[in-house]
């Protein structure tokens, strides 16, 4: 058995990275969001930046859009992932191959997914061309604007494409470890397939569903490149607003950018906490 001291020495380099870079960065961001910038002579913290961003209509509009995109993408990919995982769990010909294809997009960068979504779903994209061949549309302008659209549909499409597989693969692993014993027991007690799913399988899958979906939600709320690539010019999601303000030449908008990033982090922290509390209560109640 090794001493406590040795264990902390083993952890030290990683701790340095997380404490100095991660927590340090977070702390500095917080300070700057309070307009504490000694380099330009501001040494008295204040809430000016927060007041400024909360007073903007644009901020609330972006917040609404960001929540919509994150909730929408999480909900759709979770539902699809449950269906996919349950299907892949059964046995059928070519199952191994289908599972291989299913998890193919796991390591594909979001950016590549985004480029592909542009090529598929713009008004002259591949899907629009298929619609034209099927006689559904005549000209590109007949096809609905799904990318660069103000409602963030293009962003959601990319997230759903990537995250369905992410959640699906996790659920497949969960289902594998559950096995079929419980269902068979329920069946022998007279439960029909629907009851087996509702009262046996679903509750057993719930911890996996909850933890995978919160990761997806947090990611799609705070991520930045896909909204920048596939979003409309206006409105944009909160991380994009923050980035634009950050790169603005005006130095005062820098503290507003920081304030927005802090708000983004705070919202995710709060929602993750609430979500974990709720799921813990839910899991304990059964």
């Amino acid at each position: 058995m090794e001493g406590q001291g040795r264990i902390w020495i083993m952890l030290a380099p990683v701790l340095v990275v997380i404490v100095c870079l991660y927590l340090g960065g977070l702390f500095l961001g917080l300070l700057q969001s309070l307009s504490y910038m000694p380099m330009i002579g501001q040494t008295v913290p204040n809430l000016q930046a927060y007041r400024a961003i909360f007073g903007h209509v644009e901020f609330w509009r972006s917040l609404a859009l960001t929540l919509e995109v994150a909730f929408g993408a999480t909900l759709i990919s979770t539902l699809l992932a449950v269906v996919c995982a349950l299907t892949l769990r059964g046995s059928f010909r070519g199952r191994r191959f289908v599972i291989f294809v299913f998890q193919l997009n796991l390591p594909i960068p979001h950016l590549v997914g985004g480029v592909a979504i542009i090529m598929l779903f713009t008004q002259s994209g591949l899907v629009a061309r298929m619609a034209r061949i099927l006689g559904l549309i005549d000209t590109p302008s007949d096809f609905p604007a799904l990318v660069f659209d103000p409602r963030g549909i293009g962003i959601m499409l990319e997230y759903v494409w990537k995250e369905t597989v992410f959640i699906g693969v996790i659920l497949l692993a969960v289902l594998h470890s559950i096995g079929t014993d419980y269902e068979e027991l329920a069946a022998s007690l007279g439960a029909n397939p629907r009851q087996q799913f509702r009262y046996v399988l679903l509750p057993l899958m719930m911890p996996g569903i909850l933890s995978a979906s919160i990761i997806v939600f947090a990611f799609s709320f705070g991520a930045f490149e896909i909204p920048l690539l596939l979003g409309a010019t206006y409105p944009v999601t909160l991380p994009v607003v923050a980035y634009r303000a950050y790169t603005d030449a005006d130095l005062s908008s820098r503290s507003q950018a920081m304030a927005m990033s802090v708000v983004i982090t705070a919202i995710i922290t709060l929602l993750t906490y609430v979500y974990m509390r709720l799921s813990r209560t839910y899991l304990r109640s059964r």
Partner: protein
Amino acid sequence: MRAAATEVPARARRGGEADSGVRLGRVIRWAIIAGMVVGVLLPFVPLLLWSVSFSWRFPSLFPVEFSLRAWRYLGTPASKLGEALLGSLVVALTVTIISVIIGIPAGRALGLYRFKGKTAMEFLILAPVIMPGIAVIMGIHVLFIRYGLSDTPLGVILVHLIPTTPYVVTVLAGVFANYDPDYEDQARVLGANSLRTFVRVTLPMIFPGVAVAGLFGFLISWNQYVLTLIIGGGRVITLPLLLFGFARSGDKAIAAALALVFLGPAILMIILTTRYLTGSSAIGAFGRL
């Protein structure tokens, strides 16, 4: 997963279902399977076709004329592909090596031992996984500017360690959770020193896990866009930065060819890890990719 494939299907053993119901269920199932395969693969189709197309106007479903124009352009210095490829490789390889070196002892501590403050430590390591990096990066940028780290590869490497380290440590902790340190004691009893024990006994045993952890670290760094954009300040060019530019500029053929180049390591990852991947806890690391 492999074991599951040989299991007798629960559905087949269940009696009492009407024949038509079974048939309908089978049709639905194959429809879902077809949907999954098409859904995952469809986005790759325009990438492959656009990269070799010369003219491909609406409404033709396939390119009218093929050409290697985009690929030839990427071969010229004007495309900056060489610079971006070098930048991406240098950053990602350095980040991978550092995170694996610091991740092995940390993974061992978390996977093998119980100690006071372990839960807090695990929580601390998970925080960067769930929380978005935007506040952290904007916050730390000032410090990097002051110490001359911004706009340099070293600065970019340092910030890339923030997202990679937690994943690498998590994967390695999983590896060490199934590791038996008794072999090390035997090696020591037989007279091997610490270094020799590590190289000859520990490393061979954990090597597959280290390889997977390293690949994760590499891919996470390889895929980074925001961190490189802000800390690199446009001076450090990597592939995702180049790709983003072409994706917005509208030359679809070049964007598609570049996207395929950018996919290289991901494809390598698929080939190398398919064997280990299914059912492993390491899948969690894909969350941020």
